């Protein structure tokens, strides 16, 4: 794939920060072609994809599995709980072992920020970061951008100049960090909204506006990305209660009305209904892109796998 002679040349997908605007455009363009119904060219025929998830995941792991299979790859899910990792094997030993089996694509989720970057130095295949600690979740940011691109095209708009609010637990969110980087790169005006306990102290240096009040923060926003609030954060350490959190930061009709009239709502899932988002907003097809995000997730990951494997082939 190339765009005006520029070829995608990244060996791995570890961080949005490793990509430039052209890389992102190439990925989104290819992703958009995979939004159409199959059959698809079996570009990954004969390739091996290993899903290595050190943290539990339903949608991301399934999404990668389906993406790989639709393009003809052999997909193996490593169940970490039953593996030698559970017996105390270090990350790098696991990497060396898997590498010896010569996979082509390694999709990794890990609870420690930077784990995939370390792992990528020790393997000879492409590593795709499916979430590392509170650092990045680049494929989620890309699929969010793809979802928006498709939805906005229907309205005759694009991402440039779009005002987007990311709301909720920014502090622990890798989705937020990847999205801030990607959306800033795409020329969006990004805002973060949440209680001060859930926004990093230095977030104002990320090139975003920081708000602690939904009414202020959502004003004139075109898109609202809600983040999941982890249950263990609700018990008084970061916020007093679910009730108070929903009162001030939960997205319902009333708060949605602070944003632009045709504002769109996104959520990376899984949702806590009644904590960060009310069901009537989440389930409203006029407003919510949440289901379309899951659809776009498969298309976007097909594009990512395709792009990285081509680079692999040309290397």
């Amino acid at each position, binding site marked *: 794939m190339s765009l005006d002679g520029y070829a995608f040349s990244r060996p791995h997908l570890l961080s949005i920060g490793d990509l430039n605007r052209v890389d992102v455009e190439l990925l989104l363009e290819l992703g958009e072609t995979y939004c159409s119904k199959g059959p698809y060219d079996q570009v990954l025929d004969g390739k091996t994809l290993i899903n290595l998830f050190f943290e539990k995941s339903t949608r991301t792991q399934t999404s990668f599995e389906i993406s790989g299979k639709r393009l003809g790859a052999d997909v193996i899910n490593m169940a970490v709980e039953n593996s030698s990792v559970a017996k105390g094997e270090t990350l790098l030993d696991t990497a060396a072992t898997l590498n010896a089996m010569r996979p082509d694509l390694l999709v990794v989720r890990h609870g420690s920020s930077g784990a995939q970057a370390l792992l990528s130095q020790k393997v000879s295949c492409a590593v795709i970061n499916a979430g590392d600690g509170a650092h990045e979740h680049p494929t989620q940011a890309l699929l969010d951008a793809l979802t928006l691109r498709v939805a906005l095209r229907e309205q005759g708009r694009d991402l440039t100049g779009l005002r987007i609010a990311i709301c909720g637990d920014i502090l622990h969110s890798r989705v937020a960090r990847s999205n801030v980087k990607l959306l800033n790169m795409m020329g969006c005006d990004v805002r973060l909204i949440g209680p001060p306990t859930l926004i990093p102290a230095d977030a104002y240096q990320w090139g975003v506006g920081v708000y602690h*009040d939904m009414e202020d923060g959502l004003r004139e926003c075109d898109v609202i990305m809600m983040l999941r609030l982890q249950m263990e954060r609700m018990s008084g350490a970061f*916020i007093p209660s679910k*009730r*108070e959190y929903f009162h001030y930061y939960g997205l319902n009709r009333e708060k949605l009305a602070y944003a632009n009239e045709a504002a769109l709502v996104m959520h990376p899932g899984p949702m806590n209904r009644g904590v960060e988002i009310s069901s009537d907003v989440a389930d409203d097809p006029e407003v919510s892109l949440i289901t379309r995000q899951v659809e776009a997730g498969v298309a976007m990951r097909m594009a990512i796998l395709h792009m990285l494997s081509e680079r692999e082939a040309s290397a």
Partner: protein
Amino acid sequence: MSALVILGARVMDPESGRDEIADIRVENGVISAIGNVSTDDADVIDAGGLILAPGLIDMRVITGEPGAEHKETLATAGAAAAAGGVTSMVVMPQTEPVIDDMSLLAHLQDTGRKTSPVNVYCAGALTKGLAGEAMTEIGLMGEAGALFFSNGEAPIADSRLMRRLLAYSSAFNTLISHRAVDPYLSDGACAHESDFSSRLGLTGAPAASERIMVQRDAALAELTGGRLLVDLLSSEDGVTALRRAKDRDIDISGSVSINHLALNELDIGAYRTFAKLDPPLREESDRAALINGVNDGTIDVIVSGHDPRGAGEKRLPFDQAAAGAVGLEILLAAGLTLVADEQLDLMAFLRALTANPAGLLGLESGRIAEGAPADLVLINPGTPWVCDADELLSGSKNTPFDGRRLQGKAIVTIVAGKIVFDARGA
């Protein structure tokens, strides 16, 4: 609607700096005119040059309601407040159960309106059950009327939790009042750590305990942008630490109890448990530094530190006795006595009980201005009297001032234009 006119008072309003003889007219609970006013259709109080000040705002009142009504109710505390010239009191959350949810808050506000002659406000608990672990619904309770949040007498030992409390509350611009005590350094102490207490064989808390916590909290307030009130300063070290924090442009303020302005550790004498306080009474140099702190504005607020205790809790060996003293009826008189001794500046003293707490708490009262609530106190600064604990209106009589000579007291107390205390005939 009848009006009330006060003629010929020395009107002292710390907010505007006004200090002059003037008349005041009150209509519909609000100050309607200042200067030469009409007496038409009005009840008239001839002040005869006595001081008319905004009614005092006491930010730190412990009552026994709910849970220990035998010690104090909102009704008895309210009567004591009115007699002491206090027109607004903020009830602390250390009740049983603790004021850590909206329903109890609403109930107490309602009870206060019905049973107390003065305005009753509540402070909310900073952590659930004051246990120092989980934060309370600071936002919702604040909306429901909690004026600030406090963890009672128990400091938050966990610095990370304190950081989160200050950070979280900053989104609502909420004031957090926190005791300046290092809980480990002061553990088990019942007196100030000094030559005096060690001769008595009492375990002392060093002044450094206070200084360490002021400095920690100031650093956290700077980090988070939270609003912090250093609750109950007691030492020169503490005042110095607060002064330095204020130089750094941190949103920090400090309070002191009238006990610590008027008394020192020698008042313990031979194990007088009625002078056992928390924080403990410290040295004369500490007391002098606290007085200076009020005079120069470093200390923003004076409180009664009203803490009713039954005789059963007080008549015990010193280390086992409860700390605390009632103060609603002592606050004004003890302060005026310090003014008469030319220690405290009168305007600074009044400011720390009116304009400053009103500003910190966002109250409309605490000032004498047209349109302001007619919460007023008429003060005779010269009346000499001897404090007799048995005559206090408070539900408990524990005061270290029993038998002391005081100079000055409230003559008339007015809340929302209504006379709630009147000692003119007395």
